């Protein structure tokens, strides 16, 4: 938790409005109005990073909206937490890196 706290402070330097929440034993990093990669619709969405193992993935990035992308994605995560529904696509192997890199890597998965 302390490590996440330190990394969160680093992430806040880039995502100034990010907030940390805890629920059901998970830590969630909420980032409002996150810019999506070029070619995505909507171009901006709220996202939540779960930096721990969640639903079979070492980390997951949840989106407020299902993002339309040039690439065919498997949106297999529709999860209700922190009082609302969130969506995630199947994307693996994002682990063991600072929180900001996790967010960047997941976002890259939308298009790369």
């Amino acid at each position, binding site marked *: 938790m302390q490590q996440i706290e330190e990394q969160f402070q680093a992430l806040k330097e880039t995502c100034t409005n990010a907030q940390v*929440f805890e629920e*059901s*034993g998970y830590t969630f990093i909420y980032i409002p109005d996150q810019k999506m990669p070029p070619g995505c619709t909507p171009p901006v969405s709220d996202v939540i990073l779960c930096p721990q193992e*969640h*639903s*079979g993935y070492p980390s997951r990035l949840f989106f407020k909206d299902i993002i339309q992308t040039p690439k065919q994605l498997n949106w297999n995560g529709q999860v209700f937490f922190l009082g609302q*529904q969130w969506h995630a696509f199947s994307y693996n192997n994002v682990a063991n890196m600072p929180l900001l890199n996790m967010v960047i890597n997941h976002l890259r998965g939308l298009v790369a």
Partner: protein
Amino acid sequence: MSVKNNRQSFLGPNLDQVLETVVIGVVGLGGGGSQIVQQLAHIGFKNYVLYDFDKITDTNLNRLVGATKQDVGEELPKLLISERLIRGLLPDALISSISKRWQDQPDDLKTCDIIFGCLDGYQNRAELESLTRRSLIPYIDIGMDVRNDKNDIPRMFGQVFASIPGYPCMRCYDFINTEVLAKETLAYGDAGIRPQVVWPNSILAGTAVGLAMNLLMNWTGKCKEQIIYYEYDGNKGTIKPHVKCDIPSKACVHYKLENAGDIVLGRN
């Protein structure tokens, strides 16, 4: 105490008032939920918040209490079947029927005093538990399954779990964990046909309703020792405290009381 309640007067002198004022939520009105609704209506509960978005089909008739062959022809929503069942016993019941996934309209659930969950899958349960913990509402879950053992013999099992804020949750007891959630997500859309029959549902529903009655009335005088996790073995025909109930319970670390209430997300 009203005369109509004389056979259940042992439950306590406040029974009439409890039945008049307590609001019960039932999420999922299939095989399990329909039996819970039936029992609650017979007891005399007046206020309900019901959720189900499904319509009855021929395959439901072997276990959906209150349903008729004619309902199948009319493709009646399961909500209406439960509502009809309640009104047949309590014409003046107040019923809020929501024909949606509860996740699409969660606020109505927050007004309930107790919520029964009769849902498929672990993720669904985990999500409902997160809402009920945030809203400080006791949540009583029932479920059953049938799986073949290594000798290819069907094994029927199930559970009743009461998730009470301040007490251990489904994750504390390892009923829900990352492994079962992962398995479910990775089998997305491939859950197959879930085996369901009527009689285990009646045992599980009866146990869940009994638990709720003790929670509300403390008629045993020993509600503090109430078992909150039961395991059902359909092959043996037993329902008993889950073996993990013997482990001394610790404060729940998954849902801290200070994290209760709605979260307002947005810019700081």
